């Protein structure tokens, strides 16, 4: 687990990683904890990694999920070392969009990506990523860099503030100079090819890799999960995300995206039958994956078709084994699509679980009934508010419909501290 320390308390597998925001020493609260086993030399080195920031609550290192609205609901972002589980909506439209946002954010920030899918080739997924919306300065620099491959020299002489010309130029972190934490994406445009090629992506396409036998004795994990775990562990170890390669100068984050985990395409049959043979396969996979993540600088987003899982107990176990769980429910195809109450929104979003990391308490938003709306350049998540009730006929049908969402909202807020499902007022 990565934590920002004001006096160098280090965490991690080999204990050799300390990361912090750039302005570490002037944060408002100074945590004066004892120095924990100060034998590792890299405690004094405070490294700041592109695209991350420390959480204001507990100093946890956060990365953006690609969706600034979701970042806000999760307490600032996704903590490094944790798993975000997205429960897919019925037709896997919005969950794959969130998945793409996550990957696109990784490319924009220069993080390394690991994309695993059993359905589509990762190269195809990358081609479909949305284009980032850069502010004008960023775009101009980006174009210049691409055309000229210049790094810093600019020939424009400053006429008024000429003293500033003497200041050293800041170096660019990558082809995109925007260093904001979360970015906005334009869904109608595709990510420029140069950005994709400039980033480092490891792809895992299960049908390609399924032929070779795993060199691990058969445990109750399905074949696909074993291969995926080995692949992830390989990448983490070889590229030094777990601190095993201390010579690496520039620390980076590994973003892992796993699509449709638990679907039959991975060889798992929990979506097919209720009493399946290897019902522990998915939960074991999640446990070992979390172990890998906690000991490395990586963050993972998994989309899972939980609406297909027959055995509800497995869903509960999977939720307990993940750190952050977000459920999406789109209105497409349901009777709510034509319901005038929901006409402004495309679906509901349920924050089912938020982890308490390094803390007894956690950030929880007051608003439990959240709905999302996808516009071309913006994916907004806002409090579900009903449109004004203007006509007589609408009111009678809307009362019945209100009973339905309150049943939904019950378990929604029940994730935090909840009780019975439906209360009549």
């Amino acid at each position, binding site marked *: 687990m990565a934590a920002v320390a004001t006096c160098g308390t280090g965490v991690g597998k080999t204990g050799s990683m300390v990361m912090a925001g750039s302005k570490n020493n002037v944060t408002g609260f100074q945590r004066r904890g*004892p120095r924990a086993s100060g034998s590792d030399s890299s405690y004094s080195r405070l490294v700041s990694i592109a695209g991350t920031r420390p959480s204001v609550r507990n100093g946890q290192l956060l990365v953006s999920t690609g969706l600034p609205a979701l970042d806000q609901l999760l307490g600032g972002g996704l903590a490094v070392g944790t798993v975000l589980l997205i429960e897919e909506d019925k037709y896997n439209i919005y969950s794959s969009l969130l998945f793409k946002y996550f990957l696109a954010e990784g490319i924009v920030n220069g993080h390394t990506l690991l994309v695993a899918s059993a359905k589509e080739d990762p190269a195809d997924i990358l081609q479909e990523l949305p284009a980032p919306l850069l502010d004008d300065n960023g775009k101009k620099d980006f174009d210049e860099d691409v055309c000229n491959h210049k790094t810093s020299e600019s020939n424009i002489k400053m006429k008024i503030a000429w003293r500033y010309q003497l200041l050293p130029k800041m170096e660019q972190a990558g082809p995109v100079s925007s260093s904001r934490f979360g970015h906005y994406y334009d869904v109608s445009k595709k990510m420029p090819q140069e950005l994709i090629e400039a980033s480092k992506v490891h792809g895992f396409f299960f049908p390609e890799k399924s032929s070779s036998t795993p060199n*691990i004795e058969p445990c109750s994990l399905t074949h696909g999960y074993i291969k995926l775990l080995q692949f992830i562990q390989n990448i983490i170890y070889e590229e030094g995300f777990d601190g095993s390669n201390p010579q690496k100068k520039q620390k980076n984050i590994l973003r892992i995206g796993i699509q449709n985990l638990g679907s039959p395409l991975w060889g798992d049959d929990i979506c097919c039958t209720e009493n399946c043979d290897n019902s522990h396969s998915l939960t074991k996979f999640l446990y070992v994956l979390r172990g890998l993540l906690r000991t490395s600088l990586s963050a993972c987003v998994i989309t899972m078709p939980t609406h297909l899982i027959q055995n509800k107990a497995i869903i*509960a176990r999977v939720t307990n084994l993940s750190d952050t769980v977000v459920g999406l429910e789109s209105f497409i195809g349901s009777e709510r699509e034509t319901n005038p109450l929901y006409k402004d929104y495309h679906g509901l979003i349920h924050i089912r679980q938020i982890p308490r990391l390094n803390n007894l308490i956690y950030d929880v938003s007051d608003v439990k009934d959240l709905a999302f709306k996808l516009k071309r350049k913006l994916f907004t998540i806002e409090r579900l508010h009903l449109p004004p009730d203007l006509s007589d006929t609408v009111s009678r049908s809307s009362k019945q419909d209100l009973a339905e969402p309150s049943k939904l909202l019950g378990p929604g807020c029940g994730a935090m*501290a909840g009780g019975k499902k439906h209360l009549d007022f």
Partner: protein
Amino acid sequence: GKLTLLCDANTDGSFLVHHFLSFYLKANCKVCFVALIQSFSHYNIVGQKLGVSLTAARECGQLVFLEGLKSSVDVFFRTQAEPHPLQFLRSANAENLQPLYEFVREALKPADDGEAAWRCPVLLVDDLSVLLSLGMGAVAVLDFIHYCRATVCWEWKGNIVALVHDSGDTEDEENNILLNGLSHQSHLILQAEGLATGFCRDVHGQLRILWRTPSQPTAQRDRSLTYQYKIQDKSVSFFAKGMSPAVL
């Protein structure tokens, strides 16, 4: 020797685990903590807020910490020479949790030279429901607790504290078997549950405390108390039902 069962339904009961950990460490007991859910640094940082330092305790031998997440990676990817407590992760049909029991036994064994550096031994498990998710049957977990109780509670007069998630209305039969079995064996049950009326900012949940005497089932009636609580940054404040300062 007492077995305390912590159970949470619809909410997160981990604050109880942190409390017991800091409580026993401050009481100078030798603690074996089987932490399967979170990493060592998480408990360490929360422990510092509650006033104990886990690293110091680990270094001087008061605390034996089994970090499940980190060890699971080791067990899974590298073949181990000697039996590892989490060996069941590698095997297809793990029969029992014997290696884990041996680990606990080794950790809490009283020193041979007779001098007692610490007070009673304590086993703390966070949490047992994860063992069900990892492929062990409910009976295997109950056997493990039974063995631990025989050794730690009866032989060495120590205590055991274990956390189990209550699945509530999801029909997790294995979990229910485990929970019922443990409830019958335990002396003290602390049940943290969410409020029946839903989410509230100021009252995070309700804690039910139940004292039992499992050896004499028909003797006196079990005492029970209910408090509501709010978790704060460094402590948890309890108050009687309906007496939350936010409401009054």
